[in-house]
């Protein structure tokens, strides 16, 4: 019991942060309320800093977890990206209301303020993600996944006054609930097939069944359903349909959040669940599971990219492209423990940085007080905001996977893992998909840096808070410079120990 609590220290830090931030968000003093994001950041940093000590190799060795190496890297990656996600929302959350208070046009009303709540949900969802990485039974996994997801439904709904945010939240919530039902049903079947909820025991049971050649349909169907349901978190085909609408409806800082945290939670859940059934004693995944993952991966990247090609709204475009990135991630998952899972973790970090950078640029800009919608709004951005334009181009280049930017190395890791596990065709499909994605990512490079200004883009201005654009610049610089310490990144995201 003590051991388990010990592993929960980073999460407990975050929960502590939840309490502090919730109270801090409701104080009357404007200055103290201004500290909410920074307090949040402090707790995230503390959780991240604690993780190497909590999840050290000796402790994890006796942890009884299915993937003992996962927790440390997961916590680090999540906290690094979360800091970026947090910084890009500073000055965005509750903006109109806080400005009104600062100018004396309104008085502070705890009922109306949502700043504290936003950060509370932020921390809760992040804690959910961390809990996924140390899940040791199915109940825990389910609760952790839901803890990662439930706050995001609220975050979407309250992200901005627009009715589209409400619509997006409803859609997200109902479909999310349905997917939760699906994977919960899958979990039930898995329990039926093995008679246990504990993941390590389940692995032993499945290994036993496979060794005897008696892997029944119950287990397979359970696994398929579970994967299908969790696929919602990754926005993997066929559970991707909500993504474009929800991402577009949410305010831009929430969209950035949705693009990473639930996806990371889903990916880690995939790795954990699949490890119970696959790769035991040199055997790969059972054929039906493998086929499904293969098909889902191909469909996800292809449909995501093609859909992204057709988008005019920049947020929808990035939403569709994030679907495609889930497809790439599945290559690493199919490749399996070792090189494959390591590549997945590395890619998560790299994708997280690139995705956050691109949304940070969007978050730092507005037109007439509302956020940018159309891709055309970015045209000729360099005339008035050269740095934002450059940061956008760099992050798009990295998401595209253009060498020598960081994104290329993530893709290289996935491709190497895919090929080393004998999935050459899958890698070829991914390569062709990268080429397709060049079409729309190039628009995000070309429009800001090269296109002429138009009436719409002329009206684009920066938001008051400098933090989103600083975030964008720092992350863009990381996308250029981090390849130099690629070896270190690789070591940090290595989960095979």
């Amino acid at each position, binding site marked *: 019991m003590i051991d388990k609590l010990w592993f929960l220290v980073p999460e407990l830090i975050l929960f502590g942060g939840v309490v502090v931030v919730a109270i801090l968000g409701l104080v009357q003093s404007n200055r103290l309320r201004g500290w909410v994001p920074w307090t949040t950041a402090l707790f995230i940093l503390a959780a991240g800093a604690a993780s190497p000590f909590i999840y050290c190799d000796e402790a994890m060795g006796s942890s009884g977890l299915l993937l003992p190496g996962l927790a440390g890297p997961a916590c680090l990656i999540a906290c690094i990206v979360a800091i970026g996600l947090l910084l890009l929302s500073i000055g965005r959350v509750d903006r109109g209301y806080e400005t009104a208070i600062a100018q004396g046009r309104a008085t502070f009303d705890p009922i109306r303020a949502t700043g504290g709540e936003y950060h509370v949900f932020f921390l809760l969802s992040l804690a959910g993600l961390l809990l996924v990485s140390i899940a040791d039974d199915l109940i825990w996994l389910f609760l952790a996944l839901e803890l990662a997801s439930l706050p995001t439904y609220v975050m979407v709904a309250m992200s901005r006054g627009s009715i589209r945010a409400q619509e997006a939240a409803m859609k997200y919530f109902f479909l999310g609930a349905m997917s939760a039902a699906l994977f919960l049903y899958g979990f039930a079947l898995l329990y039926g097939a093995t008679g246990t909820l504990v993941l390590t025991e389940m692995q032993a049971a499945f290994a036993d069944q496979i060794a005897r050649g008696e892997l029944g349909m119950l287990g397979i169907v359970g696994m398929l359903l579970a994967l299908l349901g969790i696929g919602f978190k990754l926005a993997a085909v066929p559970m991707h349909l909500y993504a474009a609408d929800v991402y577009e409806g949410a305010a831009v800082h929430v969209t950035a959040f949705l693009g990473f945290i639930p996806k990371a939670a889903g990916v880690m859940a995939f790795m954990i669940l699949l490890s119970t059934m696959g790769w035991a004693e040199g055997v790969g995944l059972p054929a039906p599971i493998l086929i499904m993952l293969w098909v889902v991966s191909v469909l996800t990247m292809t449909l995501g990219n093609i859909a992204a090609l057709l988008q005019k709204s920049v947020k929808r475009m990035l939403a569709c492209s994030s679907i495609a990135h889930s497809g790439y991630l599945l290559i690493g998952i199919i490749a399996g423990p070792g090189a494959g899972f390591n590549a997945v973790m590395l890619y998560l970090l790299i994708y997280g940085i690139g995705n956050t950078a691109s949304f940070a640029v969007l978050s730092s800009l507005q037109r007439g007080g509302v956020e940018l919608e159309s891709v055309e709004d970015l045209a000729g951005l360099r005339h008035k905001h050269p740095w934002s334009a450059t940061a956008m181009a760099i992050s798009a280049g990295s998401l595209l996977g253009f060498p020598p930017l960081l994104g290329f190395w993530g893709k290289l890791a996935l491709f190497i893992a895919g090929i080393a596990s004998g999935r*050459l065709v899958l890698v070829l499909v991914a*390569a062709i998909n990268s080429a397709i994605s*060049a*079409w729309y990512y*190039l628009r995000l490079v070309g429009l800001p840096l090269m296109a002429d200004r138009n009436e719409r883009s002329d009206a684009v201005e920066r938001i008051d808070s400098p933090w989103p654009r600083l975030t964008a610049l720092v992350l863009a610089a990381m996308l250029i410079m981090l390849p130099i310490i690629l070896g270190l990144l*690789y070591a940090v995201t290595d989960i095979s120990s």
Partner: protein
Amino acid sequence: MISWLLILLPLLGSIVIIVSPGRLARQLALVTSLVVFGVSVAAAVVFDGWGRGTWDFSSSIEWVKEWGLVLQVGADSVSLILVLLTTFLMPLAILGSFNAIQTRRREYYGWLLGLQAAMTGVFLARDLVLFYVCFEFTLVPMFFIIAIWGSKNRARASVKFLIYTFTGSLITLAAFLTLAWSHAQANGGQWSFEIAALSHHAASALSLNEQAWLLLALMIGFGVKVPLFPVHTWLPLAHTEAPTAGSVILAGVLLKLGTYGLYRFVLPMCPEAVVEWAPFVAVLSIIGILYAALICWVQTDVKKLIAYSSVSHLGFCVLGLFALNPMGVEGSILYMINHGLSTGALFFLIGMMYERYHTREMGELGGLARTMPIWATFMVFFVLASVGLPGLNGFVSEFLCLIAAFTAGETGAYPGVLGPWYAAIAALGMVLAAMYLLIMVGKVVFGPTRASMKHDEHSGLPVDLTVREITVLVPLAIGCVVLGIQPDLVIDNTATAVADTLAVYQDLFEDRVAGTAAFVESAFQGGAR
């Protein structure tokens, strides 16, 4: 050390230019490129691999051990010659842009030098990952150069250029990774991306079928870059829309990345498949030669004509490589240099004319020999070099490639899989080249002066060439003459490296000849019995 210097100096210069004031950009860029040229010449002087197949200036930096990522650089005679071509052309390209580029100068010269770093990196890379990164990164500066400083149709041209090449090289990347994996499996799971090791592994351990797939994947990547028919369609557009210096570098060096890739990877990695498929590639290159030449014939845009002529000329280059004998490969390497000099110069000349008259239409030009005698002299000179006038550089290399293809029959002095027919049909390309280029010269340089031609007073340029422009052209002209008279400078110095690359083919052909002989003998004996 020198290798890293050659790659990092331009990169450093590029960063300095970006952060320093715009009015200094031109001078800074010129100084940087001249310094780099100086370094490369010094490197050429102390290089100990001339006439030998050895590598010099080697250096390696360990990077990510788990993937076997080790950044390795070094030069053999072939790569050093191409580096010299790059460092030679770059100061000229920068000097040639002084007047043409008036907007966003810092970015322009920054990108040019960044491009130089990447191109040098391609030639000096000794491991696949560094090679691939540099190979891909060349696209980015050129994309921006075309897209920002290009002419009317620049957006489409730049995107098409990037997508074509990017797609091709992704497939090549997949092939490289597969090869590296196969190598790792054979070596107990230790990954390595060293080109030499992988080449050796591919040539010795892969089956004919596997080699054929590898060949296909490599040809997709490098064939787009060369460009080989039928994936050449990006080139005319990109060349035509690019600013002058962009076209010069594109034709002068970037296309050579493709042929260099063929030389460095395709020939050593999949010899058996190459022998099997060389006729097919040769046919594609001959189609390219003739088809592009015919297109040139009907062009009215002078720049487009030169662009298509590059497709035609590079066809000879590929034909020479796939003749698979020393003469052809040496001729092809010489051709890479020659084409860089003469076509680069032609693009400069057209750019200079365009700055004055703002048209490239043959119908609107004429009689420039009267108004611009110095320009006209250079134009005729470089056209003759490009056509292949004996005594100038183009002749030797073109002739070598054709002879090599001619003698590459099963029973020739240099056994191969091509033959007289290939050479005979490709030679038509030489005739066509003479026709379209001389027709163009006749119309533009001679012919009647057109009423529509108006020298743009606002360009700030005199009627004929300025000293700066002459300074750009003279080194190129000297290069053409020197290589025309003394092609041995390239051929002798690279002979051993080429022979080493081709050694495996000698064995293969000997086996084939021996095999045929044995077959004939056994048939004969069987008949006698």
